[in-house]
């Protein structure tokens, strides 16, 4: 367990768009896997690794994220000291309004008032149950300035792919979506460095009027700093497009994936909803699906991920779908390769069909 490390999670990534799903919410707050938001995985991984002081760098559209995180109590991050801290866009004073939605001063202040030796900076679009203790230990042992986590997951990369080239385990090149990749190492969006080094880098950037902060901001300093790689071969699902969001959700239904992600001693925490258990009245047919509390399943469901409180009516046919919280599927609707956001209603007899690489997305609160 790490006691001298803190965490920064980036709630957004300007390059990652999830269509209608991210219209009104930060990437980190995207619902995933029946009862989670994507950020739950990174946040829980940090907490399970002993990182109990976590700043969430929010850019815009953070209302749903703040609602989800609350005081941090669901992650045991409601601490007297440390704990969860949301870092919203920063305004120094009424007279100086930062021109950029993501100003670095707020982050700098947060680091300045912390006491930890190391900072783990992570993007939020990774679904994985990560042990950061090994990562930080290897970073310490190697004596590198920065260590970046990567893997060789060539199949399900999507874009953006931050391709890393190492020589003697030292980062020598960094390309985003290279046409002809020279390396099969792809960044997992997690880096570790000392707090003082990160503050130095931020101070320099602020003095130059820069305002963009992400993990590449650190990695592109590979000429000045010694940046080493840490290979993570655990199960990791990258969410960087609608297609990868869809395929990552479907991978939860593959044998063993659920067990690897959730059933270790390190649990994935999320906001508790206190829904009643799911009901399966007579007449339903469910196969190869994840179903959550509060659901009422009367129709047919296969190869789907169903979130909390969803109602699925008689004679409806749902296959290869992701149906989010409190959505109502009325009798006789037929859906295939569809993602339905929260609080929507699909009326009787409606038929919708997308394709796995281009699923139909129904936005939040819509009646179809």
């Amino acid at each position, binding site marked *: 367990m790490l006691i001298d490390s803190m965490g920064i999670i980036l709630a957004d990534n300007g390059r990652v768009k999830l269509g209608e799903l991210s219209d009104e919410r930060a990437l980190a707050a995207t619902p995933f*896997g*029946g*009862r*989670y938001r994507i950020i739950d995985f990174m946040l829980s991984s940090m907490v399970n690794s002993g990182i109990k002081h976590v700043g969430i760098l929010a850019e815009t559209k953070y209302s749903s994220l703040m609602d989800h995180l609350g005081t941090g*109590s669901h992650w045991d991050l409601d601490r007297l000291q440390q704990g969860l801290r949301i870092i919203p866009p920063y305004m120094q004073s009424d007279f100086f309004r930062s021109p950029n939605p993501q100003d670095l001063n707020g982050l700098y202040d947060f680091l300045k008032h912390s006491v930890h030796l190391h900072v783990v900076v992570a993007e939020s679009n990774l679904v994985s149950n990560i042990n950061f203790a090994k990562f930080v230990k290897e970073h310490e042992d190697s004596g590198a300035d920065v260590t970046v986590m990567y893997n060789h997951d060539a199949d399900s990369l999507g874009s953006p792919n931050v391709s890393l080239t190492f020589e003697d385990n030292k980062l020598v090149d960094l390309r985003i979506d290279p046409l002809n990749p020279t390396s099969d190492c792809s960044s997992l969006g997690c880096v570790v460095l000392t707090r003082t080094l990160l503050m130095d880098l931020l101070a320099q950037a602020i003095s130059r009027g820069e305002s963009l902060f992400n993990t590449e901001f650190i990695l592109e300093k590979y000429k000045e700093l010694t940046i080493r790689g840490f290979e993570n071969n655990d199960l990791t699902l990258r969410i960087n497009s609608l297609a990868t969001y869809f395929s990552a959700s479907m991978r939860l*239904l593959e044998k063993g994936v*659920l067990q690897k*992600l*959730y059933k270790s001693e390190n*649990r*994935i*925490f999320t906001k*508790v909803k*206190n*829904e*009643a*258990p*799911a*009901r*399966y*009245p*007579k*007449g*339903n*047919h*469910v*196969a*190869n*699906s*994840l*179903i*959550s*509390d*509060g659901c009422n399943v009367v129709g047919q469901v296969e190869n789907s*991920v*169903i*979130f909390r409180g969803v109602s699925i009516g008689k004679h409806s046919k749902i296959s290869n779908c992701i149906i989010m919280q409190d959505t109502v599927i009325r009798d006789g609707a037929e859906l295939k390769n569809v993602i339905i956001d929260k609080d929507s209603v699909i009326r009787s007899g409606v038929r919708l069909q997308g394709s796995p690489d281009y699923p139909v997305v129904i936005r939040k609160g819509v009646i179809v």
Partner: protein
Amino acid sequence: MPKQQMIAMILAGGQGSRLGVLTEYIAKPAVPYGSKYRIIDFALSNCTNSGIETVGVLTQYSPLELNSYIGNGYSWDLDRNIGGLSILPPYQSLEGSDWYKGTANAIYQNITFIDNHNPDYVLVLSGDHIYKQDYREMLRAHIDAEAAATIAVREVPWEEASRFGIMNTDEEGNIIEFEEKPANPKSNLASMGVYIFSWKILREHLIADENNPDSRNDFGQNIIPAMLGDGHKLLAFTFDGYWKDVGTIFSLWESNMDLLDRPQEINLKDAMWRIYCRNTLQPSHYVGENASVTDSILTDGVEVYGSVKHSVISSGAVVEEGAEVTDSILMPGAVVKKGCKIDKCIIGIDTIIGENVEVGIAVKDGREDFVNEKFCSDGITVFGSGLVIADNVKLKGNSMLFPKDEGQVCDVILESTVLGII
């Protein structure tokens, strides 16, 4: 401490001996119920939903599981700076130490706790009933009637009235007589074990009762008759919602089945009256390719690959391929392996049922050496917690399987572990 209008004292110390192996290591209020709950969730959620923020939970019998389940009351919104949830076990003092001798004595021993909160009214509850009640309605009736005590009652069928504590009332609902299990009941109003007392009056009676060496220190048998004898006004408050004392194997099973057969009566989906519980931190449940689930309730972490019919499946339980589970209750973490036929069973926490095990009243050549009609009836079979049952075992209905004693040779139970569960 700021003055409170009403605080709640939940009696959660009883063993629940009629539940046999299910309460061997855990107190009755901590017994799993309804797929994702423990029995005490109902009393605690009722308090929170009724606006009561100071709750004392009186524990005595095997409290480890109950204490760790309740924690600081966070899951029920009872982790308050002022008031909140306190676990109140028996304690030592200068005068000596004593177990809680009866329900009234348990409250007597915590007079100081109640005085510290300085309430006008004290709500005394059992931690082992399944019901949803807004105690505020009962408090309003209590205040309007200027009663010394108000007792929640419900109408039971006349033929069953002799099994309950019966309140005989006048036309205005004032209690004129209390009879414990009367042979010839004059009324069918049965006490639910939910009392509101005006604290000053109760306090005096608790002290007088404690000084009476002949008293059994019980609310129903001693305090209520004594209050009536002193001419106090006692009000019967009729409650007509779902209520069940899950004190026996059959009533526990039946009450679970009520969630399947009469879901609207207890209505767990009521967003205005949530039943809160401690979260198990498990993913959504998984229903496999060839599985079938009908007429059942399931919760987080469950994995079903076989067939589940008319059953209540708790978090983390697994039903393997080809297994058939019917009319049964699987408690958290229970595993039913391939090819089993499980009929009318209650399977304890983390118990593993080996492959091709058959249990039920209809099983041909089922073994009868575990039949236990002291606890079990109506063909219900109960497996304790943490057992590992051998493959291919056949058992008759009405069996109860206790953990193996050390050194005991038993070809049915391969292993048994006493667990500190959660």
